[in-house]
């Protein structure tokens, strides 16, 4: 069943792969340790793609498939934006665009005790961290970092939230800073929070700035670096008139 790899595996890096593509053949890579990320699957001696996207490689040994989705699959330690759906005695039910609703324990806040349980109305936007994603269970979230500090997590007030794809939010988070944000930041002052689940929150003093930034980011998804810069320059020139 294992189809022979006709091309050398290294040539597939940074190429588009589709589900079923044999990405790596382990039989000729003995004495090596590799780490597989999302979208890859090991079947005996072959590693095949399970999702369509770009095969990425990071030195020394990490492989994963980079793709863009409208739906988010939760992974531990991801920073996401969630919307409060319901509040129960022990947990808040939070929508993080995943296949299931996530649970946010009422005590998962900095210095959280039964006495100072926060009150969130339905529809509150929260910046959160995914803690656990066990199969068959709802993912668990937290409003603190690993050391129990609040560290910017918590409710986001005002501003505007836009729904994008996971690919775009990853692009916005990439380092060096995404050209759109960089170019916009030179002229405008705004505040953003990007969740890996494809939600971006933008805030600024003027609603006009929020709209400009939000639309510039939405339009940048399929553009190259230079195209992004040109787009932002044109946009800024238009609004300065």
């Amino acid at each position: 069943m294992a189809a022979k790899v006709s091309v050398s595996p290294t040539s597939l890096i940074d190429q588009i792969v589709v589900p079923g593509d044999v990405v790596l053949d382990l039989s000729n890579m003995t004495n090596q340790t590799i780490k597989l990320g999302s979208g890859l699957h090991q079947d005996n001696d072959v590693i095949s793609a399970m999702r369509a996207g770009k095969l990425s490689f990071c030195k020394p040994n990490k492989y994963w498939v980079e793709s863009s989705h409208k739906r988010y699959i939760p992974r531990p330690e991801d920073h996401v934006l969630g919307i409060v759906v319901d509040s129960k005695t022990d947990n808040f039910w939070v929508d993080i665009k995943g296949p299931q609703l996530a649970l946010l324990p009422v005590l998962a806040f900095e210095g959280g005790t039964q006495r100072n349980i926060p009150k969130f109305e339905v529809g509150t936007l929260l910046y959160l961290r995914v803690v656990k994603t066990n199969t068959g269970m709802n993912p668990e979230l937290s409003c603190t970092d690993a050391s129990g500090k609040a560290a910017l997590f918590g409710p986001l007030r005002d501003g505007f939230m836009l729904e994008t794809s996971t690919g775009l939010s990853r692009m916005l988070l990439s380092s060096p800073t995404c050209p759109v944000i960089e170019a916009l930041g030179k002229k405008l002052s705004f505040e953003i929070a990007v969740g890996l689940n494809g939600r971006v929150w933008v805030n600024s003093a003027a609603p006009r700035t929020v709209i400009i930034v939000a639309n510039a980011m939405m339009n940048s998804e399929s553009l190259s670096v230079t195209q992004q810069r040109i787009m932002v320059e044109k946009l800024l020139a238009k609004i300065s008139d």
Partner: protein
Amino acid sequence: MEGRLANMWRLTVNESKFVETALQSELRVDGRGLYDYRKLTIKFGKEYGSSEVQLGQTHVMGFVTAQMVQPYKDRPNEGSLSIFTEFSPMADPSFEPGRPGESAVELGRIIDRGLRESRAVDTESLCILAGKMVWSVRIDLHILDNGGNLVDAANIAALAALMTFRRPDCTVGGENGQEVIIHPPEEREPLPLIIHHLPIAFTFGFFNKGNIVVMDPTYVEEAVMCGRMTVTVNANGDICAIQKPGEEGVNQSVILHCLRLASSRAAATTKIIREEVEAYNRERSLQKVKRHPTLAKSEVSGPTVAVKEEYRKSSDQEKAAEISREHVERLKLSPEELRSSKEQEATNFKGGPSNWDPYSEAMDVDSLKVSLASEGDSITKSSSKKKTNGSGNAQKDGGEISVEEVTGDLGKKDTKHKDGEMTLKDAVKPKKKRKNKT
């Protein structure tokens, strides 16, 4: 239940607050002005009567089909027009498969009212046989992506599909004059529907207790707005339908303002639809012209080629399209008759030389052979006469290549025949000479 909860789209407090505050300063979330329309693109499918409309993110597909049915008893000489909506769960997680939801029914009703009750489509022309057979036109609207303002997009999709729809031509005939003959598209050009005017729907969203009016609301705005009104108008400024759902009351002046806005926009949207349909029709007719010359070449008929050229010209002149089509049909009929008569001639003509073929199995050949044996020279002369007649016929036909081939064949057969005669005579003469010598 929980799974469905996770799939629902939710509006955050931040968004609803922001949309309202931004609208206070006349700003919209997607950067448009209050009365700006999103970008409208119309595409057409390969078949007649299919359209795909994109209004910003909203994506709607329209498909028109027709069927022959018995008319309603109270309207024996009118066809019917019905609208069906399909809200795919792919478009929006809140759409559930199966039974049409409230929004699906409402959308269908608004479009139905705009199209049918304003008598935009001429239903009387859909009658084939009064009281017995009429065309029932069905419009299917598939929502492929919901980016807000489904009504407007679906309405445009329905119009575009109706305008490009062609129904097969049919005539009443038979012994008792009650039989309906449907002509396939190869035989007769399918007919378009008669559309008197284009009723175009415009949806307005109301915010801040009806004080702020917004045209073409997006998905987010639809979730935030307190009221909605759909106005269906045509380019002449006639109001075809109004739908005002939602509990929020709206001032009379606001409604009048919306009506004015709608009728000022209607002309532009009508123009876009008409231009797209025209471009599509032109492309269709050009494709048809490309297809026909190959047929013409193989069948060899001068007059029909000329017809096609004329047809091409007519297709370019879109305004006179229908009249010219009828004209072409009439023309087509006559060349077909001509062709059939010529074909008969051609078969006879082909039969001519085959009679002279000694190896053919035709009945005439034997008798001719007998006659040949009896009087050789005279018949060869008649054969040459026949040959000239035949070639004359061929030239009349106008198929030069075929004429050359046939004449070539004739020549070959004749020479063969003459050779045969010569050899016989040659064989006889020396005998006589020998006899004389001896």
